[in-house]
């Protein structure tokens, strides 16, 4: 059975097979562990494996399912965790020599506890950009995850290992974190789906912070439906997280009926479609996606977010200010332990004053009001996720990065749910991402649009050449 495991297996498909007797969790777990361990020299998605506890969890899942105990769609499903989130069975490194090893010796983060209670099988901890920022460099001592579509290219960051592992068929889903696009960027670059939920929807307890008021934990998987299944488990109020919101958790999959009827898609053409840095191929794939949604019955409406272009500035000031406050003692006392790009990025926090930080929060109010107005006319907004397809590792340029627009950071600033799904390929055969943004705490509508789109397209079923992961 494991030798016949398809590389594009989804959580939904695997859950069905675990229940119809054509697959066991132990077979699935063993097959994926073998595949992932074999891919460490090429894809390098994992920092560590938790093989013993994974096999125990798989055995328990099989026994429970056989006895009629069904914990839901994640029961017996192999997942993995970005290594910035605490787990009881493995240390947490944040891909850094700086993080105190004692930090990781604790119980599961709330999100991991919830996944385990839902019967998920945790295969291990996934690579990332150091402290969810920076850029991979050998001096941190960790392996660098590669993009399965082309191993000379980045899988994006900071949730690089999660995206690479899903794209390569090493796990069925995983957790990422997102402060300015760290779930959605890698999802776009690797041709998978990933959602940054509404701020406060998912507990951040047990996650090393980057920007306290911008950070989110969210699911990444092959399809929007799988992300919805994961978010259903992850969502909910947590008194241990001061940012957690005590709001009802809706049924994330109830409206996944494949219909665009009555849906209004807002397109903010200014900035998001006319930025000179937006690659022609990416722009065209997103425009094609909008056409496909219109052809399937959606209404397309142009909307405006007048100050979208400066959202990135405000997000940077807030993110680097908050990150610097967390890292200041280590930057003062042992800066040499950081990777050089992480160190540089974090040091930018000294450039901003307290007044700059508050001013950025005032701009945040303005942009929240503008996006609220734009969304009052439609059900969701759509934009490109990233400016380009995945760049090569050799192309990293910090000075250029500073000057780049971002189509993702604005949704961290506003706290709105934003999902990236694959929407086509460049002429070089690299995936591009479509971003779908919803109203606050209306993830079900975001999933409805994405799922309906994935029923009329097959981009999400494409997989990289297996040579890359063999």
């Amino acid at each position, binding site marked *: 059975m494991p030798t016949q495991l398809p590389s594009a297996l989804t959580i939904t498909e695997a859950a069905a097979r675990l229940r119809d007797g054509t697959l066991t969790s132990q077979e699935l777990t063993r097959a994926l562990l073998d595949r992932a361990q074999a891919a460490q020299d090429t894809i390098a998605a994992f920092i560590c494996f938790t093989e013993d506890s994974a096999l125990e969890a798989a055995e328990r899942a099989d026994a429970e399912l056989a006895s009629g105990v069904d914990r839901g769609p994640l029961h017996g499903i192999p997942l993995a965790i970005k290594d910035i989130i605490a787990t009881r069975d493995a240390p947490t490194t944040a891909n850094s020599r700086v993080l105190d090893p004692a930090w990781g010796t604790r119980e599961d983060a709330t999100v991991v506890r919830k996944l385990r209670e839902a019967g998920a099988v945790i295969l291990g901890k996934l690579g990332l950009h150091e402290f969810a920022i920076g850029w991979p460099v050998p001096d941190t001592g960790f392996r660098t995850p590669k993009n399965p579509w082309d191993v000379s290219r980045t899988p994006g960051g900071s949730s690089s290992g999660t995206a690479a592992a899903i794209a390569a068929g090493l796990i069925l889903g995983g957790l990422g974190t997102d402060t300015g696009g760290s779930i959605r960027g890698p999802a776009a670059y690797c041709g998978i789906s990933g959602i940054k939920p509404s701020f406060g929807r998912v507990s951040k307890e047990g996650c090393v912070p980057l920007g306290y*008021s911008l950070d989110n934990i969210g699911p990444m998987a092959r399809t929007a439906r799988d992300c919805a299944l994961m978010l259903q488990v992850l969502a909910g109020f947590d008194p241990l997280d001061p940012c957690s919101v005590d709001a009802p958790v809706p049924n994330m999959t109830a409206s996944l009926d494949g219909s665009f009827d009555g849906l209004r898609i807002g397109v903010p053409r200014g900035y998001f479609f006319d930025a000179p840095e937006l690659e022609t191929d990416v722009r065209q794939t997103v425009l094609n996606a909008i056409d496909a949604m219109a052809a399937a019955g959606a209404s397309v409406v142009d909307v405006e977010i007048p100050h979208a272009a400066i959202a990135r*500035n405000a997000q*940077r000031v807030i993110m680097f200010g908050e990150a610097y406050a967390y890292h200041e003692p280590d930057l003062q006392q042992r800066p040499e332990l950081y990777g050089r790009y992480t160190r540089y990025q974090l040091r930018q926090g000294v*450039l*901003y004053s307290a007044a700059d930080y508050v001013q950025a929060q005032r701009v*945040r109010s303005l942009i*929240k009001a503008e996006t609220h107005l734009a969304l009052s006319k439609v059900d969701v907004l759509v934009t490109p996720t990233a400016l380009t397809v995945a760049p090569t590792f050799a192309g990293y340029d910090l000075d250029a990065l500073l000057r780049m627009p971002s189509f993702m950071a604005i949704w961290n600033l506003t706290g709105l749910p934003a999902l990236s799904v694959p929407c086509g390929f460049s002429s070089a055969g690299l995936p591009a991402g479509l971003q779908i943004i919803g109203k606050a705490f209306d993830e079900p509508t975001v999933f409805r649009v994405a799922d309906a789109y994935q029923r009329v397209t097959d981009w999400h079923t494409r997989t990289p050449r297996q040579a890359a992961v063999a």
Partner: protein
Amino acid sequence: MSAREAIDALLGRAALRITDSEEYERLVRNYPYEQELLAQLRLDEVRYAEPAMVYRAG
């Protein structure tokens, strides 16, 4: 104040030492651009706006 003097003052106040000349020069080189980005946040539209920060008593 030049960009170099500004960076030196900010690093000194924060008690940060930079031994990598490339990192230091990048901070100096990008300082004027960072100031432009900050200036763009000083909008007339938010002159009297409340910041997006909420505190609850207790």
